[in-house]
């Protein structure tokens, strides 16, 4: 398992440690994520899947356990170093899109690059928007875009720094069925191009688009299985009648 991008060993996250209201959000979870994988982390709400994703995504540190990302033991890094790791190696997509309002698509996508050492940030942001099929929406504001389009802007933002892994926390949670499949289709395409993607979801039909499904319940890992025949979101899209106003590109 030397080509593992992420090696998580005995990860435990406890909130209010020592207090009577102690909460074990994640308990003794070990898993590896290999470069190029498309993984779903599944679980009911409150199961600890988001907490686990936050730890895998270096947004949070485990209470105990070791977390290695790309040969770096990130569980020992400080806030500033973690920020640098996120900036360089990780991309995030959130359920609520989390785009900056009154900021156009291009500037939203540029955001991670502002904190990087890269130059030509506008050109890179343009390319990322092109990749997600929003070339003609570059100067639109979030309020002028549909939910699916906003999430694609968010994916472009996650892509723009050319990360090792993209983490998506319930990326389809706020979208209709058609937009959800569009997003999953986009993820599948990106994965085919070699991107490592981790999607957190509670919906089985979303998880079924991935190659590997990890189930979490009460903070524990209860199942980790291959999905040898992932559904193709692109095929499914063909069976859904196109709604008016929905764009057909992609």
């Amino acid at each position, binding site marked *: 398992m030397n080509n593992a991008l992420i090696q998580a060993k005995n990860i435990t996250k406890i909130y209010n440690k020592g207090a009577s209201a102690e909460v074990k959000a994640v308990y003794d979870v070990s898993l590896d994520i290999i470069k190029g994988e498309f993984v779903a982390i599944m679980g009911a709400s409150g199961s600890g899947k988001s907490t686990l994703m936050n730890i895998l995504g270096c947004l949070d540190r485990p209470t105990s356990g070791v977390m290695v990302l790309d040969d770096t033991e990130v569980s020992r890094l400080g*806030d*500033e170093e973690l*920020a640098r790791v996120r*900036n360089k190696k990780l991309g995030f997509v959130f359920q609520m899109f*989390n785009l900056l309002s009154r*900021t156009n698509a291009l500037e939203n996508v540029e955001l991670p690059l*502002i904190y*990087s050492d890269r130059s030509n940030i506008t050109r890179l942001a343009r390319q990322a928007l092109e990749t997600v099929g929003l070339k003609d929406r570059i100067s639109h504001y979030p309020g002028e875009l549909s939910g699916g389009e906003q999430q694609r802007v968010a994916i472009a933002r996650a892509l723009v720094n050319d990360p090792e892994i993209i983490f998506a926390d319930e990326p389809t949670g706020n979208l209709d069925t058609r937009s959800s499949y569009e997003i999953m289709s986009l993820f599948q395409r990106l994965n085919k191009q070699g991107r490592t993607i981790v999607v957190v979801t509670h919906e089985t039909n979303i998880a079924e688009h991935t190659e590997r499904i990890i189930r979490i319940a009460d903070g524990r890992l209860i199942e980790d299985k291959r999905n040898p025949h992932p559904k193709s979101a692109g095929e499914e899209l063909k069976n859904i009648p196109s709604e008016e106003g929905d764009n057909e590109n992609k």
Partner: protein
Amino acid sequence: MKTSRLIGVAFKQLGKNKLRSFLMMIGIVIGIIALTLVVSAGLGAQKRIMERVGKFGLDSLMVFSGGGREMGRPTGEQPVANLKTDDAEALKQEIKGIEELAPFNRKSQNEIIFQDRSTVATIFGVTPSWAPVWDWDAREGDFISEEDIDRLARVAVVGETVRQELFGNLNPIGEFIRVGNIQFEVKGIMQIKGTSPGGGDMDNRVYIPLTTFMRRVANVDYLAGIKVRLESHKDMDKVAQEIQSLMRERHRIAAGMPDDFTVRTPDEVKEMAESVAGTFNILLIIIAGVSLIAGGVVVSNIMLISVSERRKEIGLRKAVGAQRKHILFQFLLESTAVTLTGGALGIVLGVLGTRIMVLLTDMPTSISWEIVAVGAFCSCLVGMIAGLQPARRASALQPTEALRS
């Protein structure tokens, strides 16, 4: 490269919330307007003082008749009559560093009559040395001459105010004016001098020969004062001391007894005028400072509210890799940009206000780069201080915490 991007972020954020930025700015604008007005008035007052002191001459000192225990200018009627013409001559002969001196006496509130017109002015008895010592000569006709002194001539040189009051468009030279029951032939008109350091009109005067004044007008044998012009301003303190000891000797004042004369240097005059203006300025600066502090509190408050409003934005920035210092910098820059912009606006409005103030009142003002510097510095400082706590709070937010909706 990165820094300029961060600056761009701060300004964009401000532009996105114009109302909030405007509200933050307004307190600073008012504070800086107040400060600008105060500073320009303060500098103006100082400039006026310097001008007036300059009129007196920085290389000159005054010897007045009478002890100097009370502050303020001695009046024309001296309570102590002990400064004599001999004293003036002794000073000139015995003290080195004196270029020239001008003994004089004066009498205020004299009715001056020309034909059917009259005015009230101060009469000065002077010698020809008055002109070089005060750097103040007749602009038309002639000043008092040695010959006038010797023969106790009944001639007069009038100041501009007196000329206007009595003669209007008429050429006064050769005309006769009457003081009491003595007729004087007008032989000259003085150069215009304006207001004295004490605020009196230095052009409302009539100059006559000192000898004529002492014998025929006032019937006295003493002087009101002697203006002494030094060869160099550097010797001021030394010469002042020498004058003092010579005068004490001549007036036979025992050690430990107070002087019966006063030596006043321009530094003292300046100090007096400045201390009056200074007290006033300190008061005004405090008022301006208080309004700036109030403006800063407003900025700080709105920034704090904005931090909790923008938890998501901050969390997102951190999630995509913003470090503490980036967030700190952005928020500090936002508050500083607001106050600096407010400051610039305040300076512009303050300068406009100063101009209006000049039009409406006679207040002396002075607009200079110092105002811009003080305004910019203060607004920058207020912005940094006001933004510090909100910025620290923002930068301390955890990315996960802030993303939670």
